[in-house]
């Protein structure tokens, strides 16, 4: 298998799907001439031309609406937000048009549309540009929300997202674009809604998604040195959520830590804990513990930002807590 970056994995997925289906097109700020703010769309303008790789003005609500309209008339748009922090400007089109079109048109208008872009905090981008939106977005019926954490998952899931007839909100990560991982040479897709057991252990389950899958793996590595073996359940998709994968793991380990990038209240972790208490009540040997961002706007100061973010140390402490260690 080739080892490539998350960025290149997304680029391959876009290229392959655009080659496979000429209804697929990419639209957003700086996606064409500039080759993408994060170079995800590198080379696509040259290969597919300006009808299928379209630069837009700085008008998120406007071009999101164009995407919805294009999907209604049979195209398969991929709309890039430079970051999901800007995507909130388009929320009306996402929430009120894309998510509801099929339902409110009585099934007349399918919505084969992907909104994609980086999500969550990078480094020192401060409060307005460091936000994790998966729980906001997953709140809506009518969409799917995908949060791949590795190059392999990013490619396989983006291809599935483009082929899906429903609006898919695809959450990447600025800090993920340069990460590398093995990606198969041959074509593959990963089904939406399917979690991945990234590591196996019988002492505790860490249920996580997106960028935090990497944090969970770091924590697992350090815990292994202390003979604590954890399951890392990477949900990959947060809507629909793979409840069976959570159940299977917690039934085995009897303990769970839920790790997410965003804030605590009404977060993805809150939903995971609800599934666990409902489905795994008799399997639990300890209360479930959550790890998440501090309940503050992301600080700009480097030291405070580090304290606010969920990390491996906090995850390790949580694992030990649910294992009644220390």
């Amino acid at each position, binding site marked *: 298998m080739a080892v490539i970056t998350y960025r290149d994995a997304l680029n391959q997925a876009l290229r392959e799907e655009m080659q496979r289906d000429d209804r697929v097109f990419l639209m957003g700020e700086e996606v064409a001439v500039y080759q993408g703010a994060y170079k995800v769309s590198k080379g696509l303008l040259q290969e597919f031309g300006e009808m299928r790789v379209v630069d837009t003005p700085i008008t998120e609500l406007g071009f999101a609406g164009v995407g919805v309209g294009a999907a209604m008339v049979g195209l398969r748009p991929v709309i890039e937000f430079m970051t999901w922090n800007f995507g909130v400007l388009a929320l009306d089109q996402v929430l009120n048009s894309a998510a509801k079109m099929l339902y409110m048109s009585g099934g007349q208008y399918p919505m084969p549309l992907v909104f994609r872009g980086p999500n969550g905090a990078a480094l020192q981008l401060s409060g307005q540009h460091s936000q994790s939106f998966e729980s906001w977005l997953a709140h809506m019926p009518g969409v799917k929300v995908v949060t791949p954490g590795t190059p392999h998952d990013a490619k396989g899931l983006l291809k599935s997202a483009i082929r899906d007839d429903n609006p898919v909100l695809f959450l990447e990560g600025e800090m993920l674009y340069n990460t590398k991982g093995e990606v198969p040479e041959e074509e593959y897709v990963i089904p939406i809604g399917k979690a991945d057991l990234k590591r196996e252990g019988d002492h505790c389950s860490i249920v996580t998604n997106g960028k935090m899958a990497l944090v969970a793996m770091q924590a697992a590595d350090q815990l292994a040195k202390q003979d604590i073996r954890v399951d890392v359940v990477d949900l990959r998709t947060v809507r629909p959520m793979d409840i069976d994968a959570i159940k299977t793991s917690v039934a085995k380990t*009897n303990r769970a830590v839920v790790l997410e990038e965003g804030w605590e209240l009404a977060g993805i972790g809150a939903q995971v804990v609800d599934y666990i208490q409902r489905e795994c*009540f*008799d*399997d*639990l*040997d*300890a209360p479930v513990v959550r790890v998440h961002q501090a309940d503050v706007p992301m600080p700009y100061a480097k030291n405070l930002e580090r304290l606010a973010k969920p990390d491996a140390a906090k995850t390790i402490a949580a694992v030990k807590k649910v294992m*009644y260690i220390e």
Partner: protein
Amino acid sequence: MATKIFMEALSPTMEEGRLVKWLKNEGDAVKSGDVLAEVETDKAVMELVARGDGVLRKRLVNEGESRPVGQLVGVIAAKDENIDALVAEAGGTGTASGGDAAKAPEKVVAQTQETAGTSSVPRTPQQSQGESSTPPQEKSPGAQPLPSAAPAAVGTGGNGGRAKSSPLARRIASERGLDISSLQGSGPGGRIIKRDIEAAATTGATGAAPPRSDRGARAGREQPFEDIPLTQIRKTIARRLAESIGPIPTFYLTAELDLTRVVEMRAAMLELGDEFKVSINDVLLKAVATALQQHPEVNAHWLGDRIRVHNRVHLGMAVATDDGLIVPVIFDADQKRMSEISAEARQLARLARERKLKPEQYTGSTFSVSNLGMMQIAQFTAIINPPEVGILAIGAAEDVPVLKDGELQSRKRVHVTMSCDHRAVDGAVGARFLQTLRRLVENPLMLVY
């Protein structure tokens, strides 16, 4: 290292104790286990023993004074050890009579309780419905006081007497037939978790409920009891009847038993010598014990979510004392000969009147008997002693006219009335028990079979 002497919980329901008499003087050398003082509990006069070696340096309570459980009442230390701080602390926590029990640094359960009896009958308040109003007894093996504000971090203490346990621990315990309430939890706040269950299962250290067995082939006496989960109909009966009458929906079954042959037997035995003298009550106790062995469904405890059917018969016998009613227990009564029952019943009644009964002698009964025959009460109903499910009230043996083959005869007869907890015992079940009892009493030779 000084050893603190606390007012210990010497009975399951004791909240304070009166120091009747010091048996050691200040300056006396004492060894662990030595009796330091006599303490009057709510039930009896008990011994307070030393928990460490040294010299009894300080007595902090005068004879005749009361102290709440957990209060410092004395100090054992080396001869020249400085105990000023300890004594000062006792002053701080209130040496005044009747100090605040809630502020007691520690509640210690006497050793006698933990080893009490051979019975498996529940002793902790949360197990015994009869003691549901008593505060939990917290036990701590060490002598280090817990901070007064901290909830007890052990076992079944804290949290209003509910044993905290993880759902997984409860599931595994249930699958393995372990009695979770007998375990100490090692999790936060004393929570019983999986590893505690597994440790108990490996060491066999817990009050293991036997696996369900066929009632027809009931296991031997090595299995002290069997827990029968409640069926739906049982649950419905329990709920509906409790709605109708009190928390224990009681009904009463009265039978008149003919004592002609008992009287004949007593006379014949007396002819053999005074050592063979038994009372009618002794015969009835033996008959009840034997009948209980044949009807384990009334030799049972109602535990709320299940019925605990006891394989051993521990017969409680109500004794009136000047202080009130107490029910000492004849353990394994069904296994004892009539002479043993007779001697034990007399002994227990004497101890009860002298207030010398130890807790293990008045806890753990599986069924009780109350006899007011000596007070010329013809018949009466007794109140069930929960969690037992039945009690037998025995009236006076009286000569009554009986029509036999068309002729009037004089017969000695006794009325017995069984109070039954309808949640556990249906009318027919109680009646069958009384049928057996009648057969045994009216044919007392069967008691020697």
